[in-house]
């Protein structure tokens, strides 16, 4: 099975965000692999291990983090990787989808896997937009992909833990929420080997304009402290206050 995995760099979810005009202040912002894309990569490698074939990883951007992401994908088991040389910050979801679709076009992948969502997809889900661009079957919130004859058996999660099984023909584009197994770790030495393997190719592409037809007029941090009574003081003060709350609720 010939599989492509689409990977995105997103602001580190544990970092505090600062705003500069109508965008994030990106100067000191750390970027990490979109966690859902990490699960998509894991599912792709699991599938390859089961049925054979190949896994190719794609990411947009030129930053060191993007290169590192792709080398890590190779170290984990991807056969090759392509870094699509565009300024990721300037692309909306539609333009990202177009860049990915252009890169995938003509490669005849049986299956394209990517994360079900990313935290910055204001104008649509990139993965589903890629499906639309390629004209492939689509499904999101996928939690299991296993071989089934000449197609796939795919499990989709709804809500409250309810899931459904589907049979999906190929080619298809699937938005993965969770892989069947937690994404594998890989030793730094393996990543260094991947850096020297020559399996990462940089692809120079033209820079498309944003395509989503949505304009941000204001960006702000939500007023998060509105409802909470904030406890001031060190951990001892905080623990004492929480103890009082637990105690007055009669649970300790």
């Amino acid at each position, binding site marked *: 099975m010939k599989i492509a995995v689409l990977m995105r760099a997103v602001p580190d979810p*544990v970092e505090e*965000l600062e705003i500069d005009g109508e965008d994030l202040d990106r100067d000191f912002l750390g970027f990490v692999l979109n966690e859902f894309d990490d699960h998509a990569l894991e599912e792709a490698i699991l599938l390859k291990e089961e049925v054979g074939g190949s896994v190719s990883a794609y990411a947009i951007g030129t930053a060191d983090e993007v290169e590192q992401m792709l080398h890590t994908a190779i170290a984990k088991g991807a056969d090759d990787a392509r870094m699509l040389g565009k300024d990721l910050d300037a692309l909306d979801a539609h333009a990202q989808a177009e860049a990915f679709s252009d890169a995938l076009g003509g490669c005849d992948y049986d299956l394209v896997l990517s994360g079900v969502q990313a935290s910055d997809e*204001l104008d649509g889900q990139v993965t589903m937009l890629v499906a639309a661009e390629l004209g492939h079957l689509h499904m999101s919130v996928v939690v299991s992909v296993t071989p089934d004859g000449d197609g796939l058996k795919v499990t989709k999660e709804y809500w409250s833990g309810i899931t459904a099984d589907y049979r999906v023909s190929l080619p298809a584009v699937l938005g993965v929420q969770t892989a069947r197994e937690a994404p594998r770790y890989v030793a730094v030495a393996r990543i260094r080997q991947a850096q020297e393997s020559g399996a990462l190719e940089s692809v120079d592409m033209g820079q498309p304009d944003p395509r989503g037809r949505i304009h941000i007029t204001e960006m702000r941090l939500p007023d998060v402290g509105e409802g909470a009574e904030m406890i001031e003081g060190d951990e001892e003060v905080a623990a004492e206050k929480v103890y009082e709350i637990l105690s007055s609720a009669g649970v300790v």
Partner: protein
Amino acid sequence: MANILTYAEHLNGEITDASLELIALARRLASSTGGNVEAAIIGPGASALADQLGGADTILVGESDALGEFNPQGHTAVFTGLIASRQPDIILVPYTSVGMDVASVAAAASNLPLVSYCLSVGADGGLSGTCQLYGGKVEVDVEVDGDKAIFAMLSGCASADEGRVGGAGNVEPIEVSIPELGITFLSLSEPEGGDVDITAEEVLIAIGRGIESEDNITEAQELADAIGAALAASRPIIDQGWLPKTRQVGKSGLSVKPKIYLALGISGAPEHLEGMRDSATIIAVNSDPQAPIFGVAHYGWVGDLFDFMPELTERIEG
């Protein structure tokens, strides 16, 4: 005047609250713009559910046994066909597992802009919206080019109770033209029970990404044991396989309403808040003062949870 079309999702013979919220939102928009509200319900059993969508002026019913339960390909094709034939100005789709399969592909097929992660919609002097990005850490106001768009709405955008109006007025069966299906529905599975039913617990200690590693869960478990509480978690912890799925709180996990919900290292993405915001007392500990969890918490402390956990455990154990 703006005509509105909403997507009514249903599963297992039930219309979801997220869909009823959209009816309430559509009604509000229609009263300010003077348009009509049409609700589309597609799939097997759609006719029988139409009378729960009485908040809409017209209910478009696409009854079809061929689709099985929800079918991403089939339902999207039928809904896209409706957008073409009814020409609505505002299309509301829930940002749920079903809506995610419908919204982007329908937008692309209809060549319409899509506003995602949307909290509210404006229709005065052009289409606009307010959205949450970066796991709820940032809010943006947006304007849309043109006079038609699809909005993928987050849960909580309006009141489901307000949208729950019985007695369907004008029910209109629609022609269901299904493409050759490459996706076949096989079966639905309910979640398996676990060792602990977190929906029945009085106190939940819920851990998130801030716990950093599987080894650190021991400390949270010690605190839970000291209180006599159960351990729950947000999605990233479950996805790592550190706790079983039965402990997951949120959109794809369980909804809980304990007496005390102590959130440790949980930032509070919209998907998590959906499952715990009705808890009687919410206490949040997070190192990020901007974490959205503080927006729903009753009490908050900004600091390191690894300083906090042993301190509270010790205080309880005396």
